[in-house]
């Protein structure tokens, strides 16, 4: 049977020969997005996993124009690249950023906010693996409640991270951005469609894609897709879009799969008590009450 999604994207590889860990969700997101955007994408990647695995002179792994930015400077460098190319008379290109959760929600949030405020014609993709993985699994602003990282140890007194994820999707939407979306590498065709849609919209676009890190999450390298899918199916993550001032759900699971099962598969959550899991489940339910009330389907 023909695979419509596979046929819709380039058969060329633009991010190839890098040294990402087996099962890396982030590198899959980058690879898929570039297959949508094609040869004339100019990628900007901050210091982080993707630049660390892809840009080691003389082994350079992008076959489209690509540049590393400062950690905080993904969006501001995208701005400069886009303005510079336009000033030089180029029209047929896409300036696209790929930054992790720390590079987006923590150190890079100011520059991202500035770029959205200016409505610069760029696509910003946050590949969210829920911690500073490149430096060895430290807590970021997008690390979920309860997760064990190397700076939020799970002990008798504190059970991992004590704060929930920042809501980057709605933070970005609150700027009145032309297009924002959430995605998961577990639902790759949905992600690919959203990248395609973003590439056809003028102004700033933001896509937040859950991209598991088997190393940091404590799952097998071949579990990436399943765990990313399950995150959506159990309701801890959701697929949605923001466009023309409206939120729209891309997928509404009829019944959620078990949160506990999903969490207990992952080394970073294995320490959680029943009480911890209840807190997480309650917060999921509260979030979905809000989503069902305010998002259209």
């Amino acid at each position, binding site marked *: 049977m023909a695979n419509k999604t596979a046929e819709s994207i380039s058969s060329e590889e633009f991010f190839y020969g890098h040294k990402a860990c087996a099962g890396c969700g982030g590198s899959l997101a980058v690879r898929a997005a570039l297959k949508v955007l094609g*040869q*004339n994408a*100019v990628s*900007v990647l901050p210091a982080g996993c993707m*630049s*660390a695995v*892809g*840009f*080691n*002179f*003389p082994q*350079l*792994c*992008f*076959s*489209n*124009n*690509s*540049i*590393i*930015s*400062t950690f*905080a*400077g993904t*969006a*501001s*460098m*995208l*701005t*400069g*690249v*886009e*303005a*510079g*190319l*336009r*000033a*030089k008379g*180029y029209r047929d*290109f896409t300036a696209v950023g790929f930054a992790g959760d720390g590079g987006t929600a923590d150190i890079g949030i*100011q*520059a991202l*906010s*500035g770029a959205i*405020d*200016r409505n610069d014609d760029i696509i910003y993709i946050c590949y969210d693996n829920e911690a500073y993985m490149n430096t060895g699994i430290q807590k970021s602003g997008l690390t979920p409640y309860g997760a064990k990282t190397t700076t939020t140890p799970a002990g008798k007194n504190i059970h991992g991270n004590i704060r929930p994820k920042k809501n980057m999707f709605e933070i970005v939407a609150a700027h009145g951005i032309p297009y924002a979306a959430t995605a998961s590498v577990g639902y790759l065709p949905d992600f690919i469609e959203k990248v395609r849609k973003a590439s056809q919209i003028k102004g700033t676009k933001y896509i937040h894609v859950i991209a598991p890190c088997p190393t940091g999450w404590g799952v097998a390298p071949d579990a990436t897709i399943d765990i990313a899918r399950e995150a959506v199916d159990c309701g801890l993550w959701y697929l949605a879009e923001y466009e023309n001032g409206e939120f729209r759900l891309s997928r509404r699971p009829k019944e959620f799969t078990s949160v506990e099962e999903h969490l207990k598969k992952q080394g970073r959550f294995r320490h959680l008590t029943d009480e911890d899991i209840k807190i997480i489940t309650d917060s999921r339910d509260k979030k979905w009450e809000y989503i069902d009330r305010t998002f259209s389907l």
Partner: protein
Amino acid sequence: MSRKFLSGNEAFAEGIRLARPEVISAYPITPQTIVVERLSEMVEDGSLKAEYVHVESEHSAMSCAIGASSAGARAFTATSSQGLLYMAECLYYASGGRFPIVMMNADRSTALPWNIYGDQRDSLSQLDSGWIQAYAENAQEALDLALMSYRIAEDKRVSTPYMANLDGFILTHTYETVDIPEQEQADRFLPPYETDNRIDFDSPKNMAFSAGPDTNFIFKAKAHAAMLAAKDVIKEAEEDFASVFGRRYTGLTEDYLTEDADYIIVTLGSIAGLCRETADKLRAEGIKAGVVRIRYMRPFPNEEIASSLKNAKAYAVLEKDISFGNEGTVFTNVNSALHKAGISVKGYNFIGGLGGKNISAGDIENIFTSIADGTDTVNIIGAGGIGNGK
């Protein structure tokens, strides 16, 4: 050519208009703000065709300029003081990537305590960031540096970013009569930016990459060689500048009555004029005084300084800077130049103007006379000797 009554900031903005930057990233900070205000007006009235980007911080100002330069565009930004320090990471990034961005820095004190007035602790703290550093003395030189900066930075032998420094308020906000060249002259002097160090859709590049221990030093050695090559390029640019505009500059330093001088003040920036006036006064009294104005701190004029100071009985470095726990940074650099040349002349350091404190003619006269008599090696004007004894 036209003549206008302009502040240093306005003169620099006029020079930038003539240089035709293609991307300007703008963020306000006193006492630089007037530069980006004037440039926004030029873009609005159509006399400057550039992408004018309202960035949300100095870090983004430089990051944006780097992105624009990586696209092959001529990029400009301006900053001062805390802003320069806030973008410091990006300074090293721009020079490491060999992006010939030009930035004007209004030299200003650094907090704490807060202070908006002029000293040179901001830019001198960034001497090692890999940027060419020029220091203007007056508004005309500011305008001329704006034009020369791109010519020097973009030269393929150099390909290094360029920081033009203007003393905060004393130069940025003081009005002088300035000659403004015609666009046709500027275009003759400064060709459009051409480079291979850019995004290329026919032959895609991976830029701003990592380089490990096996190759990293090679990139650094090349950056150093390029900065040294700027010495010749600066001289060539000034020769061409003189033939197009009729104004001649003197390279990395500017000497005044140094040939037979017994006592020489080495300084930089806008205070040099008062030093020269004081030298004239002392000469009339029979004291052989001279002045060396450093125009470029990077590349550093080692040979020029050694040559100017070699026959003096004593010299003083007058600077608006201190490296706590040691001495003024300019003094350290000057001493190194003499030591490398095998020259032994007694040197003194006078630190003044911190946080905008006025340096008077009397202060300067006192420097000349006290180095003739011998004094503490390192002195903060008004606070006395702080270093070794006599």
